[in-house]
């Protein structure tokens, strides 16, 4: 790592150290009952215990798989739908109110219905996460696609491109950035919805772990669960950003 990289790393680490210090400070300040705030080192010890004895890794794996599948299926459906809505004005007029109606519904509000129709199995959780990813992704896609400038299409036409070539060689490259943005937004929303989806009588998963812990007032376990969700989301976002940077080297960005 070179000097500049080291400095950037340090700069990124600083707020975390600050947050931990603040955490201790709140605990020691005496304003809050100490039994309500486990100390960072206690949470660290607990997470080690959960990792080695309680199979925290299985919870992480189960939750990550749910989010991954939900987002993958949601975006797989959102890309063509968002594209159609962004590209064909009549399609937008036709479907826009409907999409906005469903988008406005918080996925949590649908849980009782999902239980009724899909039971309490893996499928039910997948449905909730799919719902959350699809509607957040579809909006990003269609806003992005509707902003594609006709200039590039005209250029391709004057060079002799037919409809299929325009789609393959102009529209798809211009759509890729929007797909990646949709993925990032959907990932964020899906993690946020995860706990809700695991409320549906889940045996394992980080949301289930938090739920069970809250029943027995195990605050340190709740903290471990929350930190895990945040960390995994952060790691996924970092990976996606790396992929984005690689795929979109051509983009002129103000901040790299």
């Amino acid at each position, binding site marked *: 790592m070179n000097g500049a990289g080291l400095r950037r790393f340090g700069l990124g680490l600083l707020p975390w150290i600050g947050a931990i210090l603040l955490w201790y400070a709140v605990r020691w300040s005496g304003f809050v009952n100490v039994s309500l705030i486990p100390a960072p080192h206690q949470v660290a010890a607990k997470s080690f215990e959960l990792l080695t004895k309680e199979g925290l890794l299985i919870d992480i794996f189960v939750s990550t798989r749910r989010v991954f599948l939900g987002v993958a299926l949601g975006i797989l459906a959102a890309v063509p739908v968002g594209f159609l809505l962004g590209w064909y004005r009549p399609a937008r007029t036709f479907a826009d109110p409907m999409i906005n109606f469903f988008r406005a519904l918080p996925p949590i509000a649908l849980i009782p219905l999902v239980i009724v129709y899909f039971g309490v199995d893996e499928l039910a959780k997948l449905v909730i996460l799919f719902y959350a990813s699809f509607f957040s992704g579809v909006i990003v896609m269609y806003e992005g696609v509707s902003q594609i400038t006709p200039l590039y299409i*005209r250029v391709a*036409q*004057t060079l002799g491109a037919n409809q299929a070539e325009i789609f393959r060689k102009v529209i798809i*490259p211009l759509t890729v950035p929007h797909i990646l943005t949709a993925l990032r937004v959907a990932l964020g929303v899906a993690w946020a919805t995860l706990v809700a989806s695991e409320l549906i009588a889940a045996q394992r998963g980080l949301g289930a772990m938090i739920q069970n812990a809250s029943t027995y007032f195990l605050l340190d376990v709740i903290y471990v669960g929350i930190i895990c969700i945040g960390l995994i989301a952060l790691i996924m976002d970092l990976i996606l950003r790396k992929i984005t940077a690689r795929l979109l*080297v051509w983009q*002129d960005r103000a901040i790299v």
Partner: protein
Amino acid sequence: MNKRAQFDKVSLAFDTPKGRLNVVEDVTYDINDGDFIAVIGPSGCGKTTMMSMLAGFQKPTTGKVLFDGRPVAGPGPERGVIFQEYGVFPWLTVKQNIAFGLTLNANHVTTAERDAICDHYLGLMGLSDFANSYPKHLSGGMRQRLAIARAYAVKPQFLLMDEPFGALDAQTRSNMQNLLLKVLETEGKTVMLITHSVEEAIYLASRIVVVTARPARIKKIIDVPFAYPRDESIQERPEFAELRSHIRQLVMDEYRAQQAQMRPVSFSE
């Protein structure tokens, strides 16, 4: 001489909420093989619309726009277009941009031919050092050279240019004009150039079509008396100055007419 493009009593009008808007009115002229036509007129007068009809993006309301004797049905690779906004593809490298047209079914060539054509235009346009760079690393002048190279690569017989150097600084602009003259000398094409610069029109064109304020009608067609190849020295000749003040007068008259047209509108709003 062989007629490449013909405008035959061409008019174009739009229906707007405020009523019918005539953009082009009763325009008739021919562009012959090897001509360099510059269309000049006040901005917003409809000269770009004229080019757009020949490019195939818009259809005349009445009259005919013919290319090689046939009505223009849509855009095609035999009519290359250079846009004012360049339109280089940001997701492709410089070389891939030039090769773009050659990868299409309409202009199929072998990989070896494609490489040869790309290298030729990279060299001609001074872009060889940037072959693998993305357009975001190019200056405005380089982007426009790239757009020209890309249009040339598919070997159009006819080149339509819509204020191609309008966004460039004076120095780059004059370099680009000289480069265009040089390239035309070796590749011999028919050109229709839309411009609002009188000097540019005289320096580059063999014939200048002066159009009126909207709706665009033909005010005057002027033959430019300088033989090709040309260089910047012709700009010092007394004939150049004479022609320039003559055309400037024509354009200024139209500019004033346009301002007079617009004034009541701006007051009423």
